[in-house]
């Protein structure tokens, strides 16, 4: 112990306890948060993945590539006892099973007129007992996936164009002064406005004032306005991060201001802008409130491209052929869609929660996570690609 008397000897004091305490408190909080995250995500993955990958899929047929959960429309789930055996069937299969048209009365067992009749498939309706139905619990969520992807792509395009334009104006053209500072402050504050407020703004302006009704178009603009503040702020920062020398060098060679920005500033700011837009994507894909009244239907018979354009809307003959694509685009943009976050809201609050509905509830949440991750991953890859080409 004699060697331990040097001046830098470790001493135990209040400060050492404080140091250890702070370290463990910080570590504990971090791991608790991490733990909650792991629990939430693993529950969704554990309960949701069977809907996509196997054991809970209804109507399973051999080529598993045809994934009924991902690529079919939602259907009502029929649960009933048939000769004492519990059966689950999608509406389509159920009506095939009982040999009845879907628009006939849905509960044949309860209807005395058909109770004794033997249907064409040989199923005696009186053998069906304890018949229950659950909306959306059978079939898949293909329209919801399509709707979410369309909403994300359209609104991000609008938000990026508007956001980059105004960021270029703010950072490159405008004279810095009190007015521009006020505008910048207002934009930053807009980022904190709750999404339901943007939803109501969208209803007021796009749905009612512009008369766009509940449509993809109204949803695109509402979501775009919601993420614009984030995109403008981040784009401005990315533009400012481009060295001044690039601008001066270009101008000194006789470039106009716009040539300089377009050729020698914007390309180097794009990776940064895309990074910030990844956050925007997650928000656009995930928000329910802005699309609740502007773009989303709980059910929709047709996908946006499946709408029939009635011939009497078009001119006859050659002019009609010219008009057709415009009519198609019009119907595409001005028709409401389904969306994953809204579907999660519907299936978790509007239908009972039990063993029969868990598939669609957790399955939708799981697919939603996967879709957001895939879109975000795609833009990260795009950013890395841009970044490797334009490095300084």
């Amino acid at each position, binding site marked *: 112990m004699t060697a331990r008397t040097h001046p830098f000897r470790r001493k135990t004091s209040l400060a050492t306890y404080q140091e250890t305490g702070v370290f463990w408190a910080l570590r504990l909080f971090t791991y608790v948060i991490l733990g909650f995250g792991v629990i939430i995500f693993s529950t969704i993955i554990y309960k949701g993945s069977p809907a996509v990958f196997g054991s809970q899929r209804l109507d399973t047929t051999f080529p598993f590539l045809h994934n009924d959960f991902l690529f079919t429309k939602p259907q009502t789930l029929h649960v009933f006892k048939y000769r004492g055996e519990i059966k689950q069937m999608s509406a389509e299969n159920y009506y095939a099973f009982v040999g009845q048209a879907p628009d006939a009365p849905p509960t044949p067992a309860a209807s005395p007129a058909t109770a004794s009749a033997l249907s064409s498939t040989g199923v005696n309706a009186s053998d069906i007992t304890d018949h229950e139905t659950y909306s959306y619990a059978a079939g898949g969520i293909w329209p919801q996936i399509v709707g979410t992807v369309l909403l994300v792509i359209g609104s991000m395009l609008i938000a990026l164009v508007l956001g980059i334009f105004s960021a270029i104006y703010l950072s490159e053209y405008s*004279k*810095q002064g009190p007015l521009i500072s006020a505008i910048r402050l207002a934009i930053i504050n807009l980022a904190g406005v709750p999404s339901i407020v943007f939803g109501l703004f969208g209803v007021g302006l796009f749905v009612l004032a512009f008369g766009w009704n509940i449509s993809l178009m109204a949803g695109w603009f509402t979501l775009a306005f919601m993420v614009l503040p984030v995109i403008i702020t981040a784009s401005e920062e990315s533009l400012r991060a481009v*060295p001044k*020398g*690039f*601008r*001066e*060098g*270009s*101008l*000194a*060679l*006789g*470039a*106009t201001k716009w*040539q300089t920005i377009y*050729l*020698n500033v914007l390309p*180097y700011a794009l990776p940064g802008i895309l990074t910030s837009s990844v956050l925007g994507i997650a928000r656009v894909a995930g928000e329910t409130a802005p699309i609740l009244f502007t773009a989303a239907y709980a059910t929709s018979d047709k996908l946006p491209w499946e709408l029939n354009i009635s011939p009497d809307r078009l001119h006859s003959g050659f002019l009609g052929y010219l008009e057709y694509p415009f009519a198609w685009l019009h119907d595409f943009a001005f028709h409401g869609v389904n969306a994953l976050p809204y579907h999660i809201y519907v299936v978790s609050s509007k239908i009972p929660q039990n063993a029969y509905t868990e598939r669609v509830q957790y399955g939708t949440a799981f697919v939603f996570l996967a879709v957001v991750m895939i879109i975000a991953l795609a833009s990260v890859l795009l950013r890395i690609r841009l970044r490797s080409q*334009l*490095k*300084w």
Partner: protein
Amino acid sequence: MMDESNPTAQAVEVVHTPVVTASASEKAARLNAPTVIDINHVDFYYGQSKALHDIHFPIKEKLVTAFIGPSGCGKSTLLRCLNRMNDLVDGTRIGAGSIKISGIDIYDPSVDVIELRKRVGMVFQKSNPFPKSIYENIVYGLRLQGINNKGRLDETVERSLRGAALWEEVRDRLHTSALGLSGGQQQRLCIARAIAVEPEIILMDEPCSALDPIATVKVEELIHQLKQDYTIVIVTHNMQQAGRCSDITAFFYMGRLIEIDATEKIFTNPTQKQTEDYISGRFG
């Protein structure tokens, strides 16, 4: 590099001494060269503060004019007035006087600043190659003018790189990134990029301040060659550099032109006390 009309100068060039050692009569003839830039009683303001006070002197054709002086004396400001780069800074203005290039007032509203900058090229303190290939850096100015003819671009690249004494070093890697070049090569690339658009005047804002001594020597040799074709104005903190590569030196202090004369005269026999103090290192 070869000055055929002057065998003495040629002999000097061969031993790579970029010091001007022309005869007295030739020097006098040079100083009487025609005026290209006429700076006429210029006052310049950053917002309310006056940065240049009544600057008045001519810049002669195909000579190297050096601006020296302590930091903040206004030499860079004046340089950036000559191709209107100060327009980029909010709140700057010429309060009085005029700057005429070939007799045209460059601050006249009828002047197209883009055309002006094509004629008056600039090399910056910090070398600023664009993050593109060497080739694309050189042709940037031409592409801006809508020239995309490959033969013409190739020819310009070779001519400019030869002009900037860089051709031999980079001819095999024209299509690799300009950022892979060393600091001195990058600065010479910026000079090549400036001469690619065939300006008449080249402004250099402390072009060697970020370079090591060997790279500095190369750029100075290059300046010495370039003055055969271009009028060069160079701002420098390095007085030895001004002495080595300029013909005329202007000394600025506190936004005022203190003295302008032939470089040798300024460095050996200045008329103003302030100039002598600065050059002998007593302040600045």
